[in-house]
């Protein structure tokens, strides 16, 4: 267990180093010169040169990369071009909102997806199964903004149950979380259904029936735990996805999370923020997968041994 953790952490560090290298290269591949952007439209060539020197952009590339990594290790993600402040605190300030939305979204999609997936698998090829599969297809293929606008129209504008946008109370959380959750639930329903169909055909499920275990208990106690591994892996991926990928939802609902920050930064070509957000989401993806790897042995004792 400790060895697994150590190996995974080493892998995680290597992946993050790779991501840092790629974002660094991308920065240089951009047509925009950060010094020019920072200096503003009316700057003299001398000012631009000064800024370039200040930023260390006149140093050889490997040295710049080294400096960049050293700063990263100290938690320094650079300074925003537009907001003239350090990037790290900007992202940190957005973290609670993003984490809250992520947790709520994942909770909703897992609950809906698990329930529907299990029912569909048990009633395989029946009317309920077809309905669930159709719904999940709609779920995975509908654009986020459309669902967001529909929910807004029905529950905020017409019924007035929830606020249109903003952040702060649990009521504000409901619509954005459901937008994420409804769409994600489609994936989960499909994964759970196919995993459950596989498990329900296994010999040990037949054994459980043969010893007289009630049908509901066979499904929930014998089959479901064996079908959970892919779900855990999917949650690990979603943690990373929602960290950066909730851009649309955050924009529509005015949710002050990291997605919104990234969205604004892209519009303003604020490269340090874009790089910072990229790194943070990479970190989230790596941590999410690590978390999934750490939970898996508790579900499947065979992994504990290996």
């Amino acid at each position, binding site marked *: 267990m400790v060895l697994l953790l150590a190996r995974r952490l080493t892998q995680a560090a290597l992946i993050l180093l790779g991501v840092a290298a790629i974002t660094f290269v991308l920065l240089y591949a951009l047509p925009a010169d950060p010094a020019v952007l920072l200096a503003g439209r009316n700057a003299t060539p001398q000012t631009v040169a000064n800024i370039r020197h200040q930023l260390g952009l006149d140093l050889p590339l490997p040295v710049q990369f080294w400096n960049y990594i050293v700063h990263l290790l100290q938690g320094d993600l650079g300074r925003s071009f537009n907001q003239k402040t350090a990037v790290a605190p900007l992202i940190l300030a957005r973290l609670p909102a993003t984490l809250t939305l992520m947790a709520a979204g994942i909770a909703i999609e897992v609950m809906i997806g698990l329930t529907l997936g299990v029912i569909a698998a048990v009633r*395989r*090829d029946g009317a309920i199964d077809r309905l669930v599969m159709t719904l999940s297809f709609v779920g995975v293929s509908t654009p986020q903004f459309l669902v967001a606008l529909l929910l807004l129209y029905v529950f905020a504008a017409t019924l007035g149950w929830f606020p249109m946008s903003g952040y702060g109370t649990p009521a504000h959380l409901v619509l954005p979380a459901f937008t994420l959750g409804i769409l994600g639930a489609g994936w989960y329903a499909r994964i759970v259904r196919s995993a459950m169909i596989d498990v329900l055909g296994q010999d040990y499920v*037949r*054994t459980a029936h043969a010893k007289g275990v009630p049908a509901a208990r066979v499904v929930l106690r014998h089959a479901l735990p*064996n079908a959970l591994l892919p779900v855990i892996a999917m949650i690990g991926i979603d943690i990373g996805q929602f960290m950066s990928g909730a851009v649309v939802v955050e924009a529509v609902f005015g949710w002050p999370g990291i997605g919104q920050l990234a969205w604004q930064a892209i519009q303003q070509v604020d490269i340090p923020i874009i790089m910072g957000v990229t790194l943070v989401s990479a970190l989230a993806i790596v941590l999410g997968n690590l978390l999934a790897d750490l939970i898996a042995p508790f579900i*499947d004792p065979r992994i504990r*041994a*290996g």
Partner: protein
Amino acid sequence: MTAPVLSVEGLCVDARTPQGARRVLHDVSFALNAGETLCLAGESGSGKSVTSLAIMRLLAKSSLRVAAGAIKLGGQDLLALPESAMRRLRGGDVAMIFQEPMTSLNPVMSIGAQLTEAIRIHQGAQDAPARARDMLDAVRITDPARRLAQFPHELSGGMRQRVMIAMALSCRPRVLIADEPTTALDVTVQAQILTLMRELKGEFGTSIILITHDMGVVAEMADRVAILQGGRIIEQAGVVPLFTAPREDYTRTLLAAVPRLGARAGEDGPPRVTTISPPTPPPGESPVLFVRDLAVTYRAHGKWFGGGSALKAVDNVSFELRRGRTLGLVGESGSGKSTTGKAVLGLIPFAGEVALDGVPIAGLSTREMRPLRRKAQMIFQDPYASLDPRMPVAAAIAEPLAIHGIGTASERRERAAELLRRVGLSPDHGSRYPHEFSGGQRQRICIARALALEPRLIVADESVAALDVSVRARVLDLMLELQETMGLAYLFISHDMAVIERMCHDVAVMRAGRIVEAGSRRAVFEAPADAYTRELMAAVPVPDPTRRPGVPLIPE
């Protein structure tokens, strides 16, 4: 005479197919008397498993349906019971154990949880853990308290089947249905499980329906036997009359096809199937396969950055094999016999000396190895898994020729047709796909593919283990015929002592990676020198109900 415990009357089962209902079980009737072991015996597709699942009412609803008949347990018709009442009977009055102990226990639940569950469902919660421990004691599992906390993957196959039996008997069922309970187990473990079942039958007052394809197991276990063929019971009799005076032709064929240990006593080689005189190898001809001090080591993973412990799967193995002869490698699972087979073909890294036709293969590059690969081919255990389901069989047979760039496309097609004829199939079958053939036919196709490159050596790894006995005998005859006509050398790997005895000139018995005894087949079988060889031979079920061996039960 008292009323039977369980009686099946006129049972018919239909399979749902796209073409409508197809009857798979025709008017099956039998009765199980108290304290009796009734064997349902037959080959694959005979309907024996369908019968047992129908009794449990566990037929897959989407594909199988009971069309007619009654199944009476102590006067009540199981087919007429509501599902809730049937569920209470399952595991309580009628319990079942299955073929695959490896997959029949839930991998994420502890042994204790699975045992106590059965007890709780049928007998209430009080003292379930204590009773679970008693049951593990009853099936002679050592250290039961520790086993309860373990998970299935931590137990051996034999132990898992003991756990299955403990679970099935925990509620003292009136009827125990055992569906091929020992087929997946090693022969010495099988002997243990069969002995255990015999002892527990009396102890728990259970009657047993034993489903098996193995007439040796039937002879050892049954009081009465019902022979199934094509979904019908064709003959039903006491075990001794059935073996001594079978009425039906099919029963006679089935019994005749059973390989009997000792059947070749007094002979030096396998039976002759052609009139071709065996070629006398010129003196000084190098052996087709020469092996000295072969060792294969697996590195166990899990240590921090390498440095794992090494596991010797094969150690200090030496033998040689000459043209036209067969060397049998026999042993139980984990003995290293398959690993040896792969190593001599250069398929896995090894240490020691291996020479094919006089050419050492150690340290050869993939390219240097290529011409040698033509000399040696392999036939695998599972004819279903070793053919590409999307490739017509003629293309599969011609593929080795194409890979080695031999002949034009049309020459290769001709060769494939000729090979199909050679293994007893029609050349017209070449355009068909593997799923259109039976298991025996598929194994013939695999043999044809192995012959395409005109090899001198064929490594046959459990090549007939998956086949029904009657089919098995014909495939073995084909292999003998090919050996006599083509002078092939076989390295014949099998766990089955009787098959080894029939096929081989020489035998090497393997255990835990080493050869414990080697010699001519006659010497090894007629005067086994090693205790393990004798144990293996004693454990083979004898297809003769008058000679039941008394294998002592050893706790595991």
